């Protein structure tokens, strides 16, 4: 069968994009020597920063999950005035330049703002603390969780819920027995997206917290203090660890594709 030119256009565009994404990454991943990688992972500061990155991003995803799920459900199931506005507000963190996010959070949490004053009275420190890092990561990550989960809820027919309700189940039990089992895969994808976004955040975090150092901040610090040679291995380790984690999560989500 003779292929149409359009087919070749799609193939060649696809190849260009694949090469565009993969070439720089492969170059970076293969640049450091094995000895260098070993030396880097034996550095306690590096391990601590990678762990801190994973753990704060995980917390951000957890917060997004707990607070975001009800809102995603609301947006998927009901129409109300100002819904578009709410959806627009949810997407705002994606569009705002990262350093601006950091500055904005710092200005609310500072002593010159009443919220910051309440915080300081409660003994909560945002500047230079894990609390601050998690706050920033949640801010930048939550839109990804909300959007993925909302799409998941939208793809489930409301009829299934209505049947459950008509048989006498409460809204609460309908959600947990019908909706949640059908939507958990999209929620997991939302969590992965949120984590991925959070782990890659640098610009906003470095403004709120330089110490303690998350991995991207340490990559930057090492790059400035010692140069590319000593920052690349950390990047390789961070990327590898994240890929491994996301790979495992992805496998969990595609194991039984026949559902939904």
């Amino acid at each position, binding site marked *: 069968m003779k292929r149409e030119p359009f087919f070749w256009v799609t193939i060649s565009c696809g190849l260009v994009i694949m090469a565009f994404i993969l070439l720089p990454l492969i170059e970076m991943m293969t640049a450091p020597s094995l000895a260098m990688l070993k030396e880097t992972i034996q550095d306690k500061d590096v391990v601590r920063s990678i762990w801190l990155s994973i753990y704060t991003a995980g917390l951000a995803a957890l917060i997004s999950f707990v607070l975001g799920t009800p809102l995603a459900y609301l947006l998927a199931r009901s129409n109300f005035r100002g819904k578009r506005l709410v959806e627009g507000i949810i997407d705002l963190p994606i569009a705002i330049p990262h350093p601006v996010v950091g500055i904005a959070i710092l*200005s609310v949490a500072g002593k*010159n703002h009443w919220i910051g004053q309440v915080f300081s009275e409660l003994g909560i420190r945002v500047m230079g603390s894990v609390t601050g890092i998690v706050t920033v990561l949640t801010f930048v990550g939550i839109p990804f969780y909300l959007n993925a989960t909302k799409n998941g809820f939208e793809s489930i027919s409301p009829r299934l819920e209505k049947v459950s309700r008509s048989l006498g189940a409460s809204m609460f039990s309908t959600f947990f027995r019908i909706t949640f089992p059908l939507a958990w895969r999209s929620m997991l994808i939302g969590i992965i997206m949120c984590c991925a976004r959070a782990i890659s955040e640098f610009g906003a975090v470095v403004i709120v917290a330089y*110490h303690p150092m998350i991995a991207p901040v340490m990559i930057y610090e090492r790059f400035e203090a*010692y140069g590319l040679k000593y920052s690349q291995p950390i990047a390789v380790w961070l990327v590898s660890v994240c890929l491994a984690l996301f790979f495992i999560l992805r496998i969990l989500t595609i194991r039984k594709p026949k559902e939904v």
Partner: protein
Amino acid sequence: MKKKGGYKWLLGLVVALILLLPYSNSFGGVSGKVIIFNAGSLTIPFARMEKEFEARYPKVDVLREAGGSQKCARKITDVKKPCDIMASADFTVIDKLLIPQYADWNVRFATNRLVLCYTGKSRYANEVNDQNWYKILDRKGVVWGHSDPNLDPCGYRGLMVLQLAEKYYKIPGLYERLIANRPKENIRPKSVELVSLLQTGHMDFAWEYRSVAVQHDLRFVELPDQINLGNYKYDNFYTQARVKVTGKKPGTFITMKGKSCTYGVALVKNAPNAKAATAFLQYMLDPQGGLKVLQEMGQPPFIPCRVPTAAMKALLPTELQQLVEVKD
């Protein structure tokens, strides 16, 4: 017929060349982009210089990238990012990292000094002065900070001021005691970033260059010349201050010795647009041009600018030679 077609082609080429003429570099005026890497503390005066310079040379587009001076140098040496001019807050960074491979010369053009910045809302703002500042920094609950000594000369200079204060006020152990009252979290990569922490009330006091304090309308405590690293007459006293900063690889260190804050500028050797860059330097090192801007922004310039040796002066582009003197 064939011949005529050939002429047409030639005619087209000539027309194209004529149309391109005004954009060509080789005919008079300078044009194109000039890429400048500058120390964070030079951002504001350089922004003004960019405007003034571009008004004189409308075909030139000055692109500035601010960062710690070390980082700027790394971008040239390690990342090989194209750059025409590098202006450092510590002229020794150019000597150490760029000369001889990436630059031939290094012109010292201005000075600065350290001050202790605060705002009206800082704790003890009504109390602090040049007599009691070190006692206030030692108080519990006072949040003060400096930039990362490994990344930003302002960072290790802030620490040097504290060491010199210990000697000048004759209070043994003052330095260690003050550092113990400054958790690691109060360190930032660049000193300019501390300004926003002061303004948002996260921090009470921060070590900054005087220029930064003036440009951001901060209140500040001026310190005696013997400890503010601003007067080269006290270089012998300053040199007693020693701060260890990270060396070429993790785990290694270099000791920085105190000396007066002196800005250096260099033309990068493989500058993509050396001609326009030289024109910018000619404006910048002119007492009626860039040096005047620096004066107004709180960074006292050297008039004229200085190079250490006659041999180095000879390496400067001829247009610039008349703007510098040989002085160590």
